[in-house]
């Protein structure tokens, strides 16, 4: 199992009585491509932060790639995230004032793996980023290019799990289709488990499995 959650509860420390997540049981198999849809503000990002180890569950088991995140320390979780999880957001995926190569290098910095500048260049090429754009601060590139570099950045450490949080919301229709096909090709090629969260139901047909967030998270029903 790539992801296995059991009896997970989470509330932000500012509002300890307001339970944001309450998940009885939910799992994702290895190399599965799962689409999770639901309205914004429902706690989807909170779930993703739990899975990446940015947040720590109040109760329950958080099992990611065979490791118990809930029993790890903060530093271990940072390390685990750097080495095993790729992450793509809707926007602000890249440090705007450094160039594409540095952005990818930076992601590489926090992992245990050896630096491979050739690999960065071949990744950028495979995402159709022209060589002339490699050394510009990424803030000056188009949103479409930025999101493609974001995939490259997320993939540089060869993660087993790729988490995408509304990565297409800032893209227009054409760019969105390009982005999705490149993303799906990439995850299939590298045999990566993909967890994709969006409110846009039209994207569901790229995926083998589509879950409604409201079915995963039962916190709303109990309150």
């Amino acid at each position, binding site marked *: 199992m790539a992801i296995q959650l059991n009896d997970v509860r989470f509330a932000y420390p500012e509002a300890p009585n307001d339970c944001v997540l309450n998940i009885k049981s939910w799992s994702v198999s290895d190399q599965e491509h799962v689409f999770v849809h639901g309205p914004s503000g429902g706690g989807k990002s909170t779930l993703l932060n739990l899975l990446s180890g*940015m947040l720590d569950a109040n109760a329950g088991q958080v099992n990611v790639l065979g490791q118990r995140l809930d029993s790890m320390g903060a530093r271990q979780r940072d390390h685990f995230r750097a080495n095993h999880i790729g992450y793509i957001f809707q926007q602000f995926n890249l440090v705007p004032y450094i160039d594409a190569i540095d952005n990818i290098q930076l992601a590489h910095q*926090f992992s245990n793996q050896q630096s491979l500048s050739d690999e960065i260049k071949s990744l950028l090429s495979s995402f159709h980023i022209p060589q002339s754009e490699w050394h510009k601060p990424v803030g000056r590139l188009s949103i479409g290019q930025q999101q493609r570099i974001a995939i490259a950045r997320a993939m540089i450490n060869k993660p087993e799990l790729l988490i995408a949080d509304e990565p297409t919301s800032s893209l227009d229709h054409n760019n969105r289709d390009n982005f999705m096909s490149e993303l799906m090709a990439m995850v299939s090629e590298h045999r990566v488990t993909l967890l994709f969260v969006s409110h846009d139901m039209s994207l569901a047909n790229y995926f083998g499995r589509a879950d409604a967030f409201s079915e995963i998270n039962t916190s709303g029903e109990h309150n």
Partner: protein
Amino acid sequence: MFFRLAVKSLLNRKGSIMLTIMAMAVSIFVLLGVEHIRGQSKQSFNSTVSGADLIVGARTGSMNLLLYSVFRMGSPTNNIDWQTYQNISANPKVAWAIPISLGDSHKGFRVMGTTTDYFTYFSYGKKRQLSFSKGKPFEQVFDVVLGAQVAKKLNYTLGANIILAHGLGKTSFSMHDQSPLKVVGILAPTGTPVDQTVHVSLQGIEAVHIDWQQIANMSGGAVSQKQIQALELELEPKSITAFMLGLTSRMNTFRVQRDINNYSNEPLTAILPGVALAELWQMMGLLENTLRLISGLILVAALLGLSAMMLASIRERKYEIHLLRVIGAPPWFLFFLVELEALLVSFVSMLVGITGLYLSLLIAGDVLSADFGMHIGLNILSFNNVLFLLLVAGSTVIAAAIPSFMAYKSASIGR
């Protein structure tokens, strides 16, 4: 990569960073400048007189005596009798004596009457003797020896004729315009008030004061060599302003000082130049500390500005911080990133401040040495100033701790 990220992040915020650097650079400029000039002026003062064991003048405060006899500052209170000088310098414990007679000026430069012993025994700095860059000591009544700065400023060469004025202003109502003095020597630069002084013999001082016009008129307007020699005998000085003493043995210093202070024929004060200088520094201490305090406060203000600027940037960089966290940066990475950025700003400010100070000293150095006789060296990085720079770096780390901690904290929450 860590370093590169910090540098590029700063370059990305050029505007506010530049202003912060300017503020820091100005404060470092003031801090180092005050310290440097303080140290240099002290050194300059301390090196002004080094050979004399005692300085003797009419009864007055030691500070006053030191200032007017050595630094040509302020005015003498009273003169001392020539006979007194002769009695004291005849004391077997006294190795040499240099009489000083002040009160006249030449185009703003003070005139000092003395004897040729001045050129033999007076020393400055690390026991360095006066040396001539041109010419020789004065021999006759109307011979003049110029300090290096006087010759340079007034463009005098050997053989030039000059006129003395009574009083100390550049223009005086009572010009001794009938006494033509002739430049016979120019001293090498010393970096002390000697450079600003016009030296004549004691007889020369007397000569310009007596109504010798009559003598000249009697001989048809020209003064012959013979007349001058005759004049010299007549011109025994009646009083002088002060004198410096060198003793045969330093062990006797306090006894001779006490004897002079108890001199029965007229009230006198004898001071040890080193002790009087120390008193002077003690007096200046309060001023020095005030200046240091002010420059310190300016630095604190600049550091607070830096801290505020960094703090504001943390809010702007919320997404960036979150992103760095997601790709695996631990919270301390963000703490040190902000600290490093602050240190880089502080380091660049130091470079700008030091360069600015160096250039200003280079430009102002000539004016300072010409107008104040103060020689300010260019080696800004003295031990004290290096210490100050380390202190600035340390304070930067402390001042940046608040924004760094904010970055750390916003990283820990992870939202």
